[in-house]
């Protein structure tokens, strides 16, 4: 698959003289030791890749470095060490002009507290990135109205941000970030400032948009449920470092570290784990009878799992092709939460 963002050993250190500090820092220094030296490791030796059309969710507690990492990707922060390539281009080597071009054409970002310009109407806020790149007035109005319709704000074009509810303001933020038709879409806790009910609604809306647009997305949240709903892959951060980066299924089934295990403890695994993940290669002859759907979660298969008596269940994809067999006991363990 085509890699859009490739980060290798990325460091972002805050403090008086981070570059020299990082150079002289002994290998394997922990977050707390760095802090004792008077520096803060916002991002600590992170390597990860984001593929085209993928939604990577970064999650972790507040202060774990999520926002900092994403701001490194968009070069709102200059990184202290390592490299970041966006579509094969080392972004730290970009000149200011090229960076502005990159942002004008390829990247969009949505912010937790919306970051709207208070003196501009909805329409002018959404058209702002187009204005910045010098598009003519008629064109940008047309495009802005398009995205405003897309996020369901038609009729509010002339409102000012303070006249809108939080959810509506974030729709403006989303519309603005989409106005330039970016390839890469960063969202930094876009729904955290909203009420739970609205949050749910916005998540649905967001999934609808993503189905429609199929962008490469880096989405930050500190809410595990939100991550599970949206993610193709989840990266869990702690103290600036990525503890584990994997599919939701793998994270709940095989937490890589103590911390991740703790994090996933409360999660009902059967809602996350799909049959596909539990499928083992067929050994010898395939079992007879009805197959379970690979794309279903174990919870969705609960009734079948309990009623069926076979030891091994065949797993088939949505076209009916056999992809493996699932151990029923193993699946029941997931369902009942046994270890």
């Amino acid at each position, binding site marked *: 698959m085509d890699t859009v963002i490739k980060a290798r050993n990325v460091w972002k250190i805050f403090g008086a003289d981070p570059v020299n500090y990082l150079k002289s820092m002994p290998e394997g220094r922990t977050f707390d030791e760095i802090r004792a030296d008077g520096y803060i490791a916002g991002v600590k030796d992170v390597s990860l890749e984001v593929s085209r059309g993928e939604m990577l969710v970064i999650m972790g507690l507040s202060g774990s470095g999520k926002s900092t990492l994403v701001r490194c990707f968009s070069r709102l922060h200059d990184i202290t060490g390592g490299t970041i390539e966006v579509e094969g281009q080392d972004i730290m080597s970009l000149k200011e002009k090229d960076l*502005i071009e990159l*942002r*004008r054409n390829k990247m969009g*970002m949505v*912010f937790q507290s919306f*970051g709207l310009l*208070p003196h501009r109407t909805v329409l002018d806020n959404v058209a702002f990135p187009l204005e*910045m790149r010098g598009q003519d007035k008629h064109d940008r109005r047309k495009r802005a109205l398009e995205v405003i319709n897309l996020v369901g704000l038609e009729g509010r074009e002339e409102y000012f941000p*303070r006249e809108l509810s939080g959810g509506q303001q974030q729709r403006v*933020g989303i519309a603005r970030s989409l106005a330039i038709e970016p390839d890469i879409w960063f969202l930094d806790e876009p729904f955290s400032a909203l009420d739970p009910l609205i949050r749910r609604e916005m998540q649905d809306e967001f999934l609808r948009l993503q189905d429609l647009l199929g962008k490469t997305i880096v989405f930050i949240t500190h809410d595990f449920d939100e991550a599970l709903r949206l993610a193709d892959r989840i990266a869990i951060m702690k103290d600036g470092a990525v503890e584990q980066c994997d599919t939701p299924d793998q994270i709940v089934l095989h937490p890589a570290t103590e911390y991740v295990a703790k994090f996933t403890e409360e999660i009902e695994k059967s809602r996350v784990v799909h049959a596909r993940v539990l499928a083992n290669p067929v050994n010898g002859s395939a079992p007879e009878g009805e197959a379970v759907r690979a794309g279903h979660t174990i919870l969705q298969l609960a009734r079948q799992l309990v009623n069926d008596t076979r030891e091994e269940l065949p797993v088939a994809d949505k076209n009916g092709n056999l992809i493996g067999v699932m151990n029923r006991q193993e699946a029941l363990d997931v369902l009942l939460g046994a270890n």
Partner: protein
Amino acid sequence: MALSSAGEMDLSHEGESKGRDPVLLSILGLAVVFILAHAIGVLPSWLVRLPESWIPPTAEVLDVVFAFVQNDLGLIHLTRFIAEGPLEFMLDATANLLYGKRRWPNLGPIPWTAIAAAGTVLGYYLGGWRLAALAGGTFLWTALIGQWDIAMQTMSVLVVAAPVAFVIGLLLGIAAWKYTWVDVVIKPVLSILQTLPFFTYLLPAVIFFKVGPTAGAVATIIYAIPPMILMTTLGLKKVSPEVVEAGKMSGSSRFQMLTQVYLPSARTEILVGVNQVIMLCLAMVVLTAFIGMPGLGAKLLAMMGSFKLGRSFEIGVTIVLFAIMLDRLSKAWVVKQPEHHEKGTPWWKEHAFLLAGLAGFVVFYILAQFIDVFTEIGRRQSFSKGKEIDTAIKGFLALDGVRAVTEWLRWFLNVKVLIPFRNSLLWIPTSAFILLIVGFSYWLGGRKSAIYAAIFFTIVALSGWWDRSVITLYTVISAVIISMLIGIPMGIVAARNEVWAKRILLACDTAQTFPSFIYLIPAIMLFGVNDVAVVFAIVIFTTVPLTRYTIEGLRTVPLEITEAADMAGATRRQKLWSVQLPIALPTMAVGFNQAIMFAFFMVIIAAFIGTQDLGQELQRTLAGTELGKNIVLGMNVALMALTFDLTIMAWAEKRKKSLGLD
């Protein structure tokens, strides 16, 4: 309760440790030794007053330096060029438009009715019918009372000075925000400029820019720039980081970031800056009367000088009305938020106010061509009641009861309080005086404040104007003490009742917008021209911040704490003394500080009524062209004011921190 008792323990503990502090004890001890030695006549004379021979010829040196800069470096040509070029051109144009001075564009004077109409619509646009009435009423009053022309003389400078100060302040503010080195250079200059008495602005302006409106405008502009710089920087720094990031992610270039993201987002602070620029300009433009600027200030000066109380009073009302109007309008602009128009609103509806304003202006402009009083209300047609008011005031003052009170007050203050106090301050040897001030700064503000105090007061002593400085200080201290006796109890009483607190705060707010000149009027009315009137004027002026910050301080006491005190069975008095006041004290200190600054400011203006302090000397320098002396005197006032400023603010900071109030 926990907080307050901790605060109290802290207080007493601090008191104890300070009481035993060896540094403080030795400073004060030394001062006492000097004083006693002086009393029995054994203190060496150089410790009593610095000998003349020790005093460096600062003023003369400065004069030479200025002469060099002015003549040999040719700076004067540059400044005169600016003055006679663009600045004078703008001033002439506004003078023509507003009161018909014969200059380009030769269109004026604009009829007063046209200006009043446009102003009323503007008032309505910004703040509904209240501000419409305020704006309309102010213009109407000014015209009817027959002061339109002098008011417009003042305004013609204001409408040039304020925008120029705004632009310069904005640019410098942006520079200070963008480049650290500019900030580093500008910060100390600003803090000095803000404590520098206005007189120090006037003389350089006169020398470099000729007497009259140009010099007045220059002094006014320079005077009004500092707060604009500060507000701009503050606003730009406060722009939310997410808005900045959103701007960057939208692909804004640096210039676009500044003009499209930062400046519009800092709108509120910038407009607050505009409000301050306008108010400072008004205050200063009135004071430029001292350097021969015609207008309301000059008229007031003349009327007060010839003891025409009625006319003084009327001019005072005009100035106050203008101050309130300008303040309220510009503040309304700060809070005015953009409103959206429904789709399909016709364009004339979107711009209804602009059109109405224009229409009013044009209609009256045309009407005025046919009806004379719409253009100008002449002297004989005006409704001025100067003479009658004059007679009434003088009659009232001559009433036996009133007279007895004012005379007694004057006698009591003068003979029993002010003169003895002044004489004893003057008696104290310079060395002991400085030590006492240093000890005070050390006790309140700590070591750093004490060092500043020592340096600043030593410079004052070396300036050669020690006695005058002490007299200045004496006036300031007496006035501030008296206004504390009035303002603090008033604030405490007002704070008990939410409604009254609000009313008094509003009154204080309004009073603070008046140009300081105004406060002389009642003082002169009641006491005539003498020391008591000066102190009285300063007292009125400084009671305002003291009352205001007492109320605000008491209002910041968290409700839970007073409730806890109630539940602990505290009486009202106990609650006030041991709970509310300790917590309110840091805020009250800000008011105290402001009061002292105001007092230093006022003391110089009051020199007009004949005092013997620095102010009077400063005034004299204006008559001649003793620039060096002017600056030395100005520096003396600034240094004394700064000493108190630094000390009190250091103390307030410490208290706030120890109370966990930040």
